[in-house]
């Protein structure tokens, strides 16, 4: 898992590997890191198809005008620090949107260090920081 600042748009991003039901197939993606995203991951529909992600659950989300829309959640494996983690990825159904978004749930065991001045994004395991404090 590598944190970067994308020079094209100045956004903090994370390079991760994802996989679905296709045996042995892993895809490297660059996802926008957003602390306002309460879930683990949102993936464009084409990425979900590419890795063969399977539909796991459904729910609803509310648009700004109060109108509810269905949300599809897929089972996706993500490699975080060499460890494979099974997460729920919501589908970005806008075909124009090709960028994945990763949320805070994916990094729940990490501390994110964002240096906007130096344009750096680093992830440190929470337990390592706690050990150093002790």
């Amino acid at each position, binding site marked *: 898992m590598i944190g970067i600042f994308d020079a094209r748009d100045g956004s903090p991003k994370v390079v991760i590997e994802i996989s679905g039901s296709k045996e042995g197939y892993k895809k490297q993606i660059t996802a926008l890191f957003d602390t306002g995203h309460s*879930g683990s991951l949102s993936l464009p529909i084409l990425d979900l198809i590419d890795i063969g992600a399977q539909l796991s659950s*459904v729910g609803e*989300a509310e648009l700004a005008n109060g109108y509810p*829309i269905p949300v599809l*959640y897929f089972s996706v494996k993500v490699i975080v620090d060499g460890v494979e983690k*099974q997460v729920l990825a919501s589908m970005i159904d806008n075909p124009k949107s090709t960028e994945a978004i990763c949320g805070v749930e994916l990094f729940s065991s990490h501390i994110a260090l964002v240096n906007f001045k130096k344009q750096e994004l680093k992830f440190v395991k929470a337990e390592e920081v706690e050990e150093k404090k002790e």
Partner: protein
Amino acid sequence: MTNPNPEEKPTQPKPPTNIQEIIDKGNKIYDGLKNALEPIQNGKYIVIEVNSGKQFIGNTTDEAIASAKKEFPTQIMFIRRIGQGDKASRYSLNFNPCYQ
């Protein structure tokens, strides 16, 4: 394969065949549980298997679905946040935009 006795009604509940049906059933079950869940469990996530009505609660979506999938590995289930539901944005879902 044809049913040897077409007049015999199936004993198992028919699983929902479309997404909206799962959402509608899930919301109906959730509404019945609302008073017991809110506000104590607000912010947690609930997964409901809509045929059995069985619920699984977790601090995160991943936690809630992981326990539900142990019992219903292939079933498509209903998921929602307890209390205020998730918001959708122009980028994605479950997401409050902050880099615009």
